[in-house]
């Protein structure tokens, strides 16, 4: 499968010269499965730029998997052109939760006065489904969704094909339940979801210095993100959901710290990276490892 990142910023879009390299769009990732099936993970503002027909083959069916319904993860829905194409079949998967069906909850955003279009007016063939509590198949992938520690009902996803696996947990504060280093695995939120994944995309919104002021906000510090990656034995980690106040230069500095710490703990420094908008990664090559394509 192939991963392409269309938005890696947390909380709110951050256009401007200081965020050009890592990008300012909020969470969105495209996963192209080995059979060509298209999955879209989250619908932040990055989804507006997402292109489906890069190889001249435009799919007619898309699955959008939402980790949760915070605005930075659904804001781009209204600007996703396939929703306005009557030939498209779009299934939106998301967390079950109080407050109505998934469609009802999304319609709070996609309705007046917040939006000029109602869900029922979207021309595509649209289908809403709660993510099952057991694994299910889409195309050639097995999907697993699991509730993780964040504010409100929030999922992490594991997408597995026979030769590779991706774990996507962009909003996650496993340390909210206690120091990750000291907790038994059964008590670490997201542990079994990420265990031994080829690629982990994980929350790293805060520096360690910033985190105490934001404890309980649902996001991770650098140290906690690294600890989670190490304990779950993932092959490669993309640190994501960048804080909107962090400039490209600050993210460069954070990456340098991350790699130094990772190396000090016995890891290969280049297996830790900052998620970057428009970055692409092939997962499940013949070497069964995640490899950077661009």
């Amino acid at each position, binding site marked *: 499968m192939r991963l392409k990142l269309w938005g890696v910023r947390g909380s709110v879009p951050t256009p401007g010269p200081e965020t050009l390299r890592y990008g300012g769009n909020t969470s969105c990732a495209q996963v192209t499965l080995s059979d060509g099936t298209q999955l879209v993970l989250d619908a932040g503002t990055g989804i507006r730029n997402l292109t489906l027909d890069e190889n001249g083959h435009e799919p007619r069916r898309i699955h959008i998997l939402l980790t949760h319904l915070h605005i930075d993860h659904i804001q781009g829905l209204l600007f996703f052109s396939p929703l306005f194409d009557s030939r498209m079949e779009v299934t939106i998967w998301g967390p079950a939760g109080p407050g109505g069906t998934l469609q009802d909850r999304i319609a709070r955003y996609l309705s007046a006065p917040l939006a000029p279009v109602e869900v029922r007016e979207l021309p595509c063939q649209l289908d809403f489904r709660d993510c099952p509590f057991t694994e299910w198949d889409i195309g050639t992938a097995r999907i697993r969704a699991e509730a993780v520690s964040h504010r409100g009902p929030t999922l992490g996803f594991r997408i597995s094909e026979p030769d590779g696996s991706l774990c996507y947990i962009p909003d996650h504060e496993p340390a*909210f339940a206690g120091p990750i280093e000291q907790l038994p695995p*059964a008590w670490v939120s997201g542990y079994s979801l990420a265990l031994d994944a080829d690629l982990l995309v994980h929350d790293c919104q805060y520096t360690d210095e910033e985190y105490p002021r934001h404890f309980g906000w649902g996001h991770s510090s650098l140290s906690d993100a690294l600890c989670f990656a190490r304990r779950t034995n993932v092959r490669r980690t993309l640190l994501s959901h960048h804080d909107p106040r962090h400039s490209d230069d600050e993210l460069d500095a954070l990456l340098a710290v991350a790699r130094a710490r990772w190396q000090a703990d016995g890891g290969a420094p280049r297996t830790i990276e900052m998620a970057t908008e428009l970055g692409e990664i092939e997962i499940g090559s013949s070497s069964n490892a995640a490899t950077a394509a661009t």
Partner: protein
Amino acid sequence: MATDQHPVEIILARGLMSNLVTPAFLVDLEGTLVFYNEAAGDLLGMRFEEAGPMPATQWGTFFVPHDESGAPIPVPELPLSRVLANGRPSHRQMWVRSTRGEDRGLEVSAFAIVGSAGMRGAMAIFWEAPGAA
């Protein structure tokens, strides 16, 4: 892949309980005592780190729950057991015996922990009954 991970609702309940000074118990759907907090450890005379997880048949008798007359309270009648059996909150007065041999009078309130996938377990909070110890 590990499959014995606790649901996030139970993980977060443990996080909450760890920060309470009110004694509290946490059980999973099977009734296994998966955690009790430091305040409960003080009450019972044994920290959870020493006691470890216990099935209901064990924890339900380990701390000798009994009524005012000293008669043992059967495990199915304990508030946590009643919650797991019918999903409804449960409250009662009871006494437990600490590992130091002290009888402690308690008010116990238990309630279900219910997430999107349904009931995930239950927690009980203990208040020492004034003058009942």
